[in-house]
């Protein structure tokens, strides 16, 4: 008996070390590749005869949205081995793996009268699993583009882990006419340049429109009275309201606070420009800076606790950060050239800005301590960055050189990749990206 226990003991002692030495193979990988994720979107199934065209259109829009990010690459339909003729049809993953499609989007569209319903499913081809669950959107046929954007947003979000930005709108200044007599009015469009509508006419100059946090209103600077004044316009009703200022004062560069109840802006009086905050409900003003220099272009942090702005208090135009209630400011930009129009990222980790140096303009980003500055663009004139709702893309104005130069809007990924023009009829500048629509 004793022997057996001893044997057991010894056996266990022997087994221990052996087991220990047989651990898993451990590797560390630090270098990957940077390339678009391949995906396939077979044309959505039309579950009713009337849905044929819309199904095809929505499918193409989803592809366009995803491929337009630069993060995805479509596997063309000509490469498909198997076709998806039914939404409920089992997926032959091997066929999609064979054409190296990493993601597969399958959808179906139903049209009854003017009612439209779109449903889809997203599959991770190589794991043979569905990513998330199927979703269905319902609306009217007139809103088919929004439905397509919604599907693309969901796909984007599930694969990247970040919020989408396709079902969002941009307010901008639409420009027409020669450079010396340019007509400007407020326009609003889908993020991809579609569905342009105008909020004002061209009777007076308008500048720097800014969306409210929930997208229901727009702030902008108007020269209707001959002096710059800040107006608030309701997007749905196009009703306007003007921010009251004293005679002789010039107000400009406004932005909403995070709750949409207040406005921070620059007010110029007697040759001095400072930053103010006004409550839209009560009209109460609070002065946030009091330096003899020019302080302007304020932008609130996502949590509303801080403001980044530009100032020439150091003798050169630089970026500063201060409390949302004013007070001491710290400089965050120290590079060569001049920095302006800072905008705090929705993620809160970066500030986008316009930089002028050596005769060129750049759109760039930096961290809040001024580190890791990266210039994303360079041209004769790039300015006025605005963030996509997910903080992934920056849209800005670019003007070409010369008397015949025109303004247009561009977007660029924060990695500096995927720089492309936003297709809009005529000239366009001063974009402000609104939130994702509900």
């Amino acid at each position, binding site marked *: 008996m004793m022997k057996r226990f001893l*044997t*057991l003991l010894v056996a266990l002692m022997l087994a221990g070390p052996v087991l220990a030495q047989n651990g898993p193979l*451990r*590797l560390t*990988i630090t270098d990957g590749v940077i390339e678009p994720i391949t995906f396939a979107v077979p044309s959505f199934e039309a579950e009713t005869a009337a849905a044929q065209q819309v199904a095809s259109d929505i499918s193409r829009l989803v592809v366009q949205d995803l491929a337009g990010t630069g993060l995805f690459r479509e596997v063309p339909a000509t490469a498909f081995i198997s076709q998806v003729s039914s939404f409920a049809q089992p997926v032959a993953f091997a066929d999609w793996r064979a054409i190296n499609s990493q993601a597969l989007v399958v959808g179906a569209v139903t049209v009854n009268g003017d009612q439209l319903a779109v449903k889809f499913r997203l599959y991770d081809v*190589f794991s043979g699993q569905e990513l998330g669950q199927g979703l269905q959107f319902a609306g009217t046929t007139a809103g088919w583009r929004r439905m397509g954007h919604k599907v693309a947003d969901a796909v984007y979000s599930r694969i990247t882990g970040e919020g989408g930005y396709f079902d969002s709108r941009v307010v901008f200044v639409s420009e027409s006419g020669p450079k010396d007599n340019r007509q400007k009015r407020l326009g609003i469009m889908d993020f991809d340049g579609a569905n342009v509508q105008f909020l004002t006419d061209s009777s007076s100059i308008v500048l720097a429109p800014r969306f409210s946090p929930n997208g229901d209103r727009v702030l902008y600077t108007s020269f209707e009275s001959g002096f710059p004044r800040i107006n608030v316009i309701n997007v749905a009703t196009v009703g306007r309201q003007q921010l009251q200022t004293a005679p002789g004062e010039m107000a400009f560069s406004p932005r909403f606070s995070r709750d949409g109840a207040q406005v921070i802006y620059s007010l110029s009086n007697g040759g001095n420009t400072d930053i103010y905050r006004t409550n839209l409900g009560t009209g109460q003003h609070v002065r946030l800076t009091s330096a003899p220099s020019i302080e302007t272009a304020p932008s609130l942090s996502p949590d509303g606790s801080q403001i980044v702005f530009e100032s020439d208090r150091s003798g050169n135009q630089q970026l500063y950060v201060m409390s949302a209630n004013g007070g001491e400011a710290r400089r965050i930009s120290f590079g060569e050239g001049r920095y302006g129009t800072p905008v705090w990222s929705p993620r809160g980790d970066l500030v986008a800005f316009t930089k002028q140096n050596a005769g060129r303009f750049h759109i760039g980003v930096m961290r809040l301590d001024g580190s890791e500055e990266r210039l994303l663009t360079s041209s004769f004139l790039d300015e006025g960055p605005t963030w996509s709702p997910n903080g992934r893309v920056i849209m800005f104005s670019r003007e070409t050189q010369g008397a015949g130069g025109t303004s247009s809007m561009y977007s660029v990924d924060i990695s500096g990749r995927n720089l492309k023009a936003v297709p809009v009829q005529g000239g366009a500048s001063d974009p402000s990206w609104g939130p994702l629509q509900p």
Partner: protein
Amino acid sequence: MATPGTIISGIGHVGLIGWLIVGWGLTSEPLQIQTMDVSVISGEEFEQMRARTTPEPGTAEPTAPVPPIVDEAPPPPPAEEDPPQVASPPEPVEPPVEEAPPPEAPPALPETEVTVAPPVEPAPPVAPPPTPDVEVSETPTPPQAPTVASTISEPPAPDARVDDIVREEVVPDDSADAEVIAEEQEATAPEETTTAIVIEDLAPSTSVRPSTRPSRPTPPEPTQTAQQDTPTTTTEPQANEEDVSAALEAALGAADAPAIAAGPPMTGAERDSFRVSVNRCWNVDPGSVAARVTVEVGFSLDRSGRVEGNEVQLLSSDGDQSATNTAFEAARRAILRCQSGGYQLPADKYDQWRDVVITFDPSGMRLR
């Protein structure tokens, strides 16, 4: 005048001088012999030898060219063939590896997720039954630990013989049938196995063990006794002993499997090769939040180098939930996408790479 001694001396000297002269010439002969060896090789043979030897550099040394050199030396035929056999490793033979067949995959998808939302609102996914969907090709699944363990079983352990004995004990355990056998073995068998291992292990610790020594030689018997031994013990009255023996077997069995598993360690090149093959499928989006998250994932490979069940598990992460999920998905995609027909890994070291843990650290790829 010339005394006889002088004459003898003169003759002796003359003889000595003559011998010296002649002797030097004779001594040179051996030198000639040495040169002879070199020159003896015929031109043809030399050419043949050159012809044979020239190809050598390309491949391994084992090849044939040797014979001519010695001329008379016996032709070395058989020995040459041996090396190639040794070099035979390439055969490893990984049979199946195909995966194509299972295309149709998932059963029926319940239409489910039909939440009707007001225009534009993403309806919450009503769909309850997420049908599993395609369980892609599951490859062979042949290797089973127990059998392998019993056969190979040569962990780097020092005492080979002793180990063998122990193992055999383990294997047969399963068959409790053998109970029939006599009781004697109970005593002897355990002693064998135990003595072999126990004694050696305990020996260093407790020096005074001579008394038990004698019992050791008695059981030179083969493994069978050992095997039967266990059952006999079981038959014994006390249930405790059964438990003990079961635990023992389990312990030894467990030790056995991994021991076999150990095998030769993977070389740096083999590890690098594996790493690179996953690298090229790890797609990092440097602008994403997930690019700031390091994840550690684990999975098992079958003998063909494919991920078993396509299952990859998240072991740890240093990011928030959302970023972690994205980083994990990217890691999983990399592992599954690049396995194609199976990762190329040394078959004889299967137990070294059967279980894998990979840390995906994108810190070097973040935007700067």
